[in-house]
Structures are given as structure tokens and as C-alpha cells.
């Protein structure tokens, strides 16, 4: 009992920090700053070759793969699976402390597929969003359900919750999918204790609200703007940052002429009220399905001689945008990929130069593909190197816009696409080290398929990630040299973390290939048509000294 009291009392302190994690992995992105960087260095370049499996945990929930970021607090690891099962495991041994299986209705539908990217833990509760669009709160000690709320009828909205919630103060903030459906997106905050709705931010303004004029007619009702990943939080500014997805219909913009706020934008919201403080729209009137959905990495760096609070957000467009997180002022944008032709470039004020849009009823070759110049699998930032590490995906598509009438809650793509190799070389990916401000590339690790797992950076100057062939590996954070590798038996689509229990550092990675992208890699590489599914957490540590 004392042990639990200590966790609950200590936890808010850990959340208030920006930067690197230590013993725990308290939040989806590590800490609120989403660096996915740990200060632990027991495992480092000199000994990484000696890593051994400490334990493995098979969830038994294979369809959809294992895509979560585990949360670790005081020696307990919390893991969620594709169909909303939650396990609390002893982080040193893998022993099950409790498990919870959410009962999904038999008629639950997902237009993409089933998966879950993680839980949030705080105030003695474990929070999860579900495939049928509920939020549940479990007792952190026992896994017993405390409350659940149906955010919106999933049968009507065609939406799910697959992203991890974010606990900020006494609220749990949850996004929603359905950005490629006829649906109006939102972000919702619930009271952690009672489950009561605290605030809602509609990502598409309603009539009479500023920004609604960027949507003609009724297009605002069906304009997408999903919030399918997890945001960040700056406690000092009391702002929650969330990246908003693409407008719908994805490829046909003729019925939504205008900027389509706040799609493809970073929004900064007051954490207590959900009121918009500022926004920065990366792609006005997106017709490429280039969500700004991924991590909002918060870092303070000098820009032109002045230390500024920055927010770095890579997007599906293949570009990384850097803005001032106090004001939303655009500072920089730089490409993660070589192959892009949807624009020629981005000007000094963030303006898109030379837009190359899909055409009605006529196929057009565009790069990157809607799979993204990067998928959602997150990058990492190491304060030791000062570099941002991210995957880039080099691939293209033939896309054709088609006029489509919206039907509430149903897919609303407004076109079709077919994946293609880029000009002059086969599709491939790379994991590279970048200057976060300029995008200058220091090294690059090339891979013949698509890297679709998140990156973990540590103070041991190591990067950990996995590939679709099942290898989980470590790179030298300074050179990109591969130092260690372990075959887990199924591809990687989740997010590794690290933590320390009783003085020992552990590295944990989900293994288990799945997702919409995983399922369609076979379009380019036939060997992926029947990829091996899986859902296992592998946990590594150094052998005990004799």
C-alpha cells in the first residue's frame, strides 16, 4: 500500500518535466515533451552487444499487431493491445499483475483495422480509448473498471479511438479517428475522477466561429480533421499541443474551396478550458491526405541567437515544420525525404511553392505517397547530440481525384490511389540524424523496405528501433552504425521504451506487424502479402555481473 501511495504522490512531479525520462516511462512520448529520450546509460555503446532477453510477454491478441507504447511507473509496465486488452506486468519479470479485457460489441467496424497505440496513466488510473469510441478508466492497482463513457456512437460517426490519451492535470484528453470519413473532428477532455466531459475542441469551427468561413456550404460538417495521435503539453505555458489531420474528402477539394481550418494544423489549447490559443496551418486546403498528425516535439533551442521555445512536427507530407510554441510563429520547414513533387518547396514564411494537385478523373504521379514521407511511428531527440532522429519513406503514388457526395460516418476519400516506386530507384526508407532546425543530415541508415516502428534514443548514445522483417536493433546515435540486432519473429510497428527497476536498465519493444500500411506493403513488395502477425513484448537487459 505504501508503495502505491508513493507512486501517486510522486507522479505529478515526473509529468511536469520536459526532456529525458529516468526510471519510469510515464507518458506516451516519454515525458510531455515527446522526445522519446531516456537519461539512462547503463546500456551503452560499450555493452549493447551483450543485451539478452530478460522476459517476453505474448498478449494473444494478434490481429492488428502490437503498436502500443508501454507506460512504466514504479516497476509496473502497462500495455494495451489491438482489441483493447490491458495488461499490468511486473516490469522486471513480466509477471501478470492484472489484466482487463474490454468487451467490444460484435458489430464494431473500423475502416482501417483494429489497433491501439497505448494507455495513459495518472491519478491512480489507467485510461484507454477503444475501437467503439469509448474512453475507459481503470483502477491502476487492480485493473477494475471505474468509469467508461461513449464519446460518440461509433456506428453513426464511423470513428474509433486508437491513439493513446494524454493526462494533463485533472483531465484526460482523447482524440478520434475518421479523418477520411464524412465526420467533423474533435478533441475531448474528461474529468479523470468522474469521466464527465470537461471540454471539447472541434477541429472544424462551426457557423459563427472564426474559421468557419474557410468551409463553403455544409462542407464543415463532413470535413474530417481527425486527432488520431497523441499531443504534448507545456506546463509552464499551460498549453496542450495537438496535430490535426487532413480534410475530407481527401483528394477532391472542389466542394470545400478555402483553407479548411484547422485541418493540417498544430493547435495550441488552454489545458483547462480547451480554448484555442493559437494555430499554425501547415497545408491550407490539403488535397493530398497529408495529415499533421504526428508528434509535437517540444524543445528549447537558439534561433538566430535567441533561445526560443520550439515545437517540431513532422507530417505525412515529408516535411518537418518548426514553429514557436508560445505564439505559433512559423520558423522553419525542411524535408525528411528526397522524393517529393506535391510542392516545389516551402518559402521563408511557410508558404507552399508550386502546388501540384491531384486532378479530377485523371491519374497523376505524386510523391510522397499517402502512406506518408513518414508514417506515424515517432522520431526521437537526443540532447547529447542535439539531433532529431526520424524515419523517412521514399515512395510515390498514382492518385486520381473523384467527386464524391458525403454520407455521414462513411469513408470520404474523394479519389483513389496506387502506390508506386519513386523515379530512378526502388521504394525504400531511411533512419537519419538531422539538425532539428535546418534539417541538415549527419548520417543515414538505409533500409530496403519501410521502417514503421518508433525510435528510442538513450543517454548511452544508442538508438533502438525495429523493422518489418522482425529485427530489433541498436544504432550508434553519433554515426548510425548498427551495433546490435535481435530477431523477434514478427515485424515492428510499435514504440520501444526504456526504464530501470532495482538498478537495472531494461529496453522493452512491442513486436507484431500490423496496420493499414503493413497490410498494403504487398502492393509494392509481394513478399509482404502474407506477413507474419504477432503480438509479443520483448524486454532486454544486460546479463548480471558474476
Amino acid at each position, binding site marked *: 500500500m505504501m508503495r502505491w501511495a508513493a507512486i501517486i504522490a510522486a507522479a505529478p512531479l515526473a509529468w511536469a518535466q520536459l526532456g529525458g525520462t529516468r526510471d519510469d516511462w510515464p507518458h506516451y512520448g516519454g515525458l510531455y515533451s515527446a522526445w522519446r529520450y531516456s537519461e539512462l546509460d547503463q546500456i551503452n555503446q560499450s555493452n549493447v552487444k551483450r543485451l539478452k532477453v530478460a522476459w517476453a510477454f505474448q498478449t494473444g491478441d494478434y490481429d492488428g499487431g502490437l503498436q502500443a507504447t508501454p507506460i512504466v511507473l514504479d516497476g509496473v509496465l502497462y500495455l494495451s493491445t489491438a482489441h483493447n486488452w490491458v495488461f499490468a506486468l511486473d516490469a522486471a519479470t513480466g509477471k501478470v499483475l492484472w489484466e482487463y479485457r474490454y468487451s467490444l460489441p460484435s458489430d464494431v467496424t473500423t475502416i482501417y483495422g483494429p489497433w491501439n497505440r497505448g494507455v495513459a496513466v495518472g491519478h491512480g488510473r489507467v485510461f484507454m480509448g477503444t475501437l467503439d469510441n469509448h474512453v475507459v478508466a481503470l483502477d491502476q492497482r487492480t485493473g*477494475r*473498471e*471505474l*468509469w*467508461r*463513457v*461513449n*464519446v*460518440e*456512437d461509433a*456506428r*453513426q*460517426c464511423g470513428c474509433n479511438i486508437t491513439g493513446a490519451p494524454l493526462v494533463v492535470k485533472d483531465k484526460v484528453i482523447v482524440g478520434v479517428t475518421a479523418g477520411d470519413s464524412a*465526420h*467533423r473532428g474533435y478533441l475531448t477532455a474528461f474529468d479523470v475522477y*468522474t*469521466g*464527465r*466531459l470537461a471540454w*471539447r475542441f472541434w477541429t472544424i469551427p*462551426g457557423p459563427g466561429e472564426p474559421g468557419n468561413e474557410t468551409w463553403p456550404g455544409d462542407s464543415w*460538417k463532413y470535413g474530417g480533421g481527425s486527432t488520431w495521435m497523441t499531443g504534448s503539453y507545456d506546463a509552464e505555458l499551460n498549453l496542450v499541443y495537438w496535430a490535426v489531420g487532413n480534410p475530407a474528402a481527401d483528394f477532391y477539394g472542389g466542394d470545400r474551396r478555402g483553407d479548411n481550418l484547422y485541418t493540417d494544423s498544430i493547435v495550441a489549447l488552454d489545458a483547462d478550458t480547451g480554448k484555442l490559443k493559437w494555430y499554425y496551418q501547415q497545408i491550407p486546403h490539403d488535397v493530398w491526405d497529408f495529415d499533421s498528425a504526428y508528434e509535437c516535439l517540444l524543445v528549447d533551442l537558439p534561433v538566430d541567437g535567441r533561445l526560443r521555445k520550439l515545437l517540431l512536427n513532422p507530417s505525412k507530407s515529408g516535411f518537418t515544420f518548426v514553429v514557436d510554441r508560445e505564439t505559433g510563429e512559423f520558423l522553419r520547414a525542411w524535408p525528411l525525404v528526397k522524393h517529393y513533387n506535391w510542392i516545389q518547396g516551402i518559402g521563408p514564411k511557410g508558404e507552399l511553392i508550386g502546388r501540384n494537385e491531384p486532378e479530377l478523373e485523371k491519374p497523376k504521379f505524386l510523391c510522397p505517397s499517402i502512406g506518408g514521407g513518414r508514417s506515424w511511428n515517432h522520431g526521437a531527440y537526443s540532447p547529447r547530440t542535439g539531433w532529431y532522429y526520424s524515419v523517412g519513406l521514399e515512395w510515390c503514388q498514382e492518385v486520381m481525384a473523384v467527386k464524391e457526395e458525403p454520407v*455521414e460516418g462513411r469513408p470520404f476519400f474523394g479519389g483513389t490511389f496506387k502506390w508506386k516506386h519513386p523515379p530512378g530507384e526502388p521504394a525504400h526508407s531511411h533512419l537519419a540524424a538531422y539538425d532539428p532546425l535546418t534539417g541538415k543530415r549527419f548520417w543515414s541508415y538505409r533500409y530496403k523496405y519501410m521502417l514503421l516502428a518508433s525510435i528510442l534514443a538513450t543517454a548511452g548514445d544508442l538508438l533502438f528501433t525495429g523493422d518489418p522483417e522482425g529485427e530489433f536493433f541498436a544504432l550508434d546515435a553519433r554515426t548510425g552504425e548498427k551495433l546490435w540486432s535481435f530477431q523477434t519473429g514478427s515485424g515492428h510497428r510499435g514504440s520501444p521504451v526504456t526504464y530501470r527497476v532495482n538498478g537495472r536498465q531494461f529496453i522493452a519493444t512491442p513486436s507484431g506487424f500490423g496496420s493499414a500500411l503493413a497490410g498494403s506493403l504487398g502492393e509494392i513488395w509481394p513478399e509482404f502479402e502474407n506477413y507474419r502477425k504477432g503480438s509479443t513484448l520483448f524486454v532486454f537487459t544486460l546479463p548480471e555481473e558474476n
Partner: protein
Amino acid sequence: MLWLALLVAQAGAPADEVARGEKIFAASCAVGYCHGAGGSAGRAPRIQGRSFTPEYLLKVTRDGIPGTAMPAWRGQLSEEELRAVVAYMLSISAHPAALPSGETRQEAAARPMPARVKTGRELFFDAVRGTRCGTCHALENWGVAVGPNLAAVRVRSIEELRRPPARSVKTARLASSEEFPALLVEQKDGWVRVYDLTVAPPVLRTVAANELGWREPARWDHAAFVRSYTDAELQAVLDYLRWLEPR
């Protein structure tokens, strides 16, 4: 599993019918390990939370299912009592899916629908309102079944839509002295599940039975949840509900 109290009907005369049906169900259908208290399933199938058409329920209740333990109640219950029991069973359907006419949603959509009814349906499920009727009531396989099946309880006026009797809503009081308007859903193994109706969407909360007390009546204002609708809009919703009723 013991289902204690369920979503009881709200309107005047039809509510009486549902209440009468509840008594008959408790005495005739829930007993003997059959359908369980509140239709929560015993040896016989669960009624609560499933989707039936009134026609099917009436036929099975009246004629029984040959070759099974389901008896024919014709002769034992009057026609009026049979209808009351069916009205009750419809009121406890958590997903009152099919239209009372037995049509699917697609078939119903193909049926000529007066413009006002169509408007009423759109308003009932109006997604761009934070809170709409469908936030707490399900019809035609859409919406969330917390409150009663409004096609079965025969709401007669927009005033009833605003301020239904809502007799099953009570004030829950927790050991922490927190109080909130609540609907009892389930009691099991020392735990109680209640819908917290303080704000929309309702929250299904699980609390220890020994930490929960009840007070009547509830201080709860259904009209607050309906306030985004004008009189004319509520009239259209009413027209939609009437269109769904068995004819």
C-alpha cells in the same frame, strides 16, 4: 448477474402500459431461472439489450416456440397483458434496433418519408450538436441506448420531450458525499454500475455497493440536455418518433 432496475418508460398512458408489463414480466417471465430479473438472462435467453421487433415478441409470447421451453401465453395472459409485456420488453432493449414495423434501416429509408419526419430524424442524430437526442437514446441502430426507446414509449408532446417524468432517475450519493443524478444499471458482486447523468454524454460508473446510497427525487433537468432544440425542431423530432411507432 442481477439486473435491478432498468430503463423505465416515461410518458403518461403508455408508461402505465410499460409498468403493467414490467409487473407481468417479473411474475411470469423472470421467474424459474427463465429470462432473469429485468430480462438479464437466466436459463432462457436474455431480453435486455437485444433487438426484437414488436411483432416477433408478440408472436413468441403469445404462441411460444415449439420444441423449446418457451410456453405459449395465449389463454394465460389477456391480449392487453400480452401487449403490455411486449411494451416492457421493448423498453429494456439496449439497442432497439429494428423499426417497430420490422423494417431494416435501408428498407425504411426506401419507404416514402415525409419531409418533416426526415428533418426530425436528422435532428435526432444531428452530429454537429455536442449533445443531441442520439447521445442518450438509440433508434434504428444509431445512437447510445442509455435512456428509453423513444419509439416504444409514445411521447405525445414536445413538453414531454423536454420534461419527461423520468421516474427511474434518482440521486446517487457516494461515501465521499459526492451526489449526482443517476440511473441504476446493474448490481453484481458488491459493485454497482450507474449512469452518471450530470452532463452529456452520460458516464457509466462502477462504485462499491456499500459506498452508494440513493435519494429521491433526483434534481435533474432533462430540458437542459434538449436546450439546443427549438420548439419547431422538437416538433419535427416528435413527428419522427410517431412515424416509427407501430401502426
